[in-house]
């Protein structure tokens, strides 16, 4: 198909041929941080995540362990999830659970890469204690641990911090899945998890 490649690049060059010389300057006068920190950051994240109909709980490490222990049903967890985050009934994903097995469990418990206060977003980067993408997608109920010190203020801060995660796949989640396709009524829970519970652990 290299004929197509050469032709398209040729067309692009021809289209640009008459342009005036000189680069277009990229304007970067936007804020990179809304200037939140400490407790304000955690408050903002909790408030914004709840606005998307996620359940948000603020706990210490012991409280998180207890909350996860109390989960009902069998939960899938990443192979490397710490002992203290394990539910009573769990199955570790070592990559050979198939789609149907993942579809059948009650839920999933994972950690996260970071979270964004301004938008109430959690980011998974397939790194430590997060597992592969399918395990947080097929189960109906996602319990996500958000260590308070991983909350950043803004989208630019998150993007810059995530460069190091590449080339691993990234998933940004803001609340459970949703649609507004029928008469613009927002319905939570379409194809992705119908419930998202966020445990904010510790203080920033």
């Amino acid at each position, binding site marked *: *198909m*290299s004929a197509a*490649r050469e032709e*398209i*690049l040729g*067309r*692009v060059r021809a*289209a*640009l041929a*008459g*342009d005036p010389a000189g*680069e*277009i*300057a*990229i*304007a*970067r*006068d*936007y*804020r*990179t941080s809304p200037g939140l920190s400490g407790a304000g950051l955690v408050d903002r994240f909790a408030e*914004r995540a709840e606005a998307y109909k996620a359940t948000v709980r603020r706990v210490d490490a012991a409280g998180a362990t207890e909350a996860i222990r109390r989960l009902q049903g069998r939960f899938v967890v990443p192979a490397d999830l710490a002992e203290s985050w394990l539910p009573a009934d769990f199955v570790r994903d070592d990559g050979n659970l198939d*789609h149907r097995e993942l579809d059948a469990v009650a839920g999933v418990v994972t950690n996260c890469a970071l979270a964004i206060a301004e938008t*109430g*977003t959690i980011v998974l980067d*397939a790194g430590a204690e997060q597992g*592969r*993408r*399918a395990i947080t*997608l097929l189960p109906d109920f996602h319990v996500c641990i958000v260590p308070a010190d991983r909350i950043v203020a803004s*989208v*630019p801060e998150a*993007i*810059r911090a995530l*460069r190091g995660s*590449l*080339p*691993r*796949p*990234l*998933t*940004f*989640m*803001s*609340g*459970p*899945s*949703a*649609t*507004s*396709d*029928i*008469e*613009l009524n927002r*319905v939570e*829970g*379409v*194809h*992705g*998890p119908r419930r998202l519970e966020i445990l904010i652990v510790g203080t920033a």
Partner: protein
Amino acid sequence: MASAAEPRTFPQLARRAVADTQLRRNIGNATQTIRTKRAAVVAEVPDWEELREAGRSLKEHTLRNLDRYLVQLEESVTKAGGQVHWARDGAEATRIVTDIAKRHSVKEVIKVKSITTEEIKLNEALEDAGIRPFETDLAELIIQLGDDVSSHILVPAIHRNRAEIRELFMRKLGLTELSDRPSDLTAAARSYLREKFLTVPMAVSGANFGICDTGTICVVESEGNGRMCLTLPKVLVSVMGIEKLVPTWEDMEVFLQLLPRSSTGERMNPYNSLWTGVTPGDGPQEFHLVLLDNRRTDVLADRTGRQTLNCIRCSACLNVCPVYARTGGHAYHSEYQGPIGAILTPQLHGMDAAASLPFASSLCGACYEVCPVKINIPEVLVHLRTRAVARSGPSLEKLAMGAAIRMFDNPGLLETAQKIARIAQRPFVSDGYITGGLGPVRQWTRARDLPAVPDQSFREWWRTRR
């Protein structure tokens, strides 16, 4: 496609649409709702104008160096284990996708909403090859099951109400019991598609952004059907217009703020997936990226029209447009509707296909104000009008305009014309306005006031004062 007998031009289709009061109410309410949400979340952002300028300049910079960036993207995607294909037009792109499907002997593919694949009529091509495409976005499913066409870039089934959707699902999904509550209708779609997600081995997606320095592709969505398509099948093919590039990973910090707020009026949409080539043990193990030209290079060659390629398909311009709010999307007869459709369709599908679209606007400029990448849509509309008129053959209007130029150039001629007009207009004047008229005059006065020629012109009055 419409047959020759069916109305095709915007005025014809719009006349039919505005007569449908239910449709006008649906579209009016919907656009009002999204408009209000967008305004609220944009007002929250103190540096919104700076972000818009960053978005515009990033897009313009990328387009001005598009050859270099395309080569860079190809390099980084290939290095990450993806395969890059180049498609000069829709036919070539659909051939690439169907060939991949045939090579894997798949009978079905799942699709995440992509207007680009609509533009190239991919579903028809797949069906012709004996492969069944399943649209997985709720609205796209409603459109596909109803053999319908999209009427909004973001909310394709905006013209359908819950009762119609309930009836459609019962008939097409073989359900005997179903309420018309949106939550129940959504649940019905979920269970229908679940099996497909778990079993279909190949997915086709569009792409919101292609990041050149890292080779990362980004898909922005809400329902999770995108994540399903991008994660579960063995083979993934993404079709992306060549204008969707962003230079570096860090540039996403601009677009991931501009797009969700402009589009759905949310601080962030529920899900963004960003993947780089192939990841062993996670997601599709074969990834193809199809770079589509399909006249985009023609748009690039037109220096006024070029800014159209800045578009990130947010649909904010549709929701503020007084014309779209009254006609709905079908009047635009295209997969791209509203103000952006009025400039994109003639440029991508050719002037012949859409010569009336650049005129489907009052040039009020609301679209330009809300555009997150500052496309001056009114400027491009006027530019395309000029092109449309230059292409059309001789006409009464052109003759009249030519005569008008001569008349206004010559004071004597003008006075004579005014004297004739005073007599000719008499039967049609009421209250100082011409309300009827003949031929083209009638077309004008049907929807607008035309002041009558006064009994005495300023020049005549001036002469009586001396």
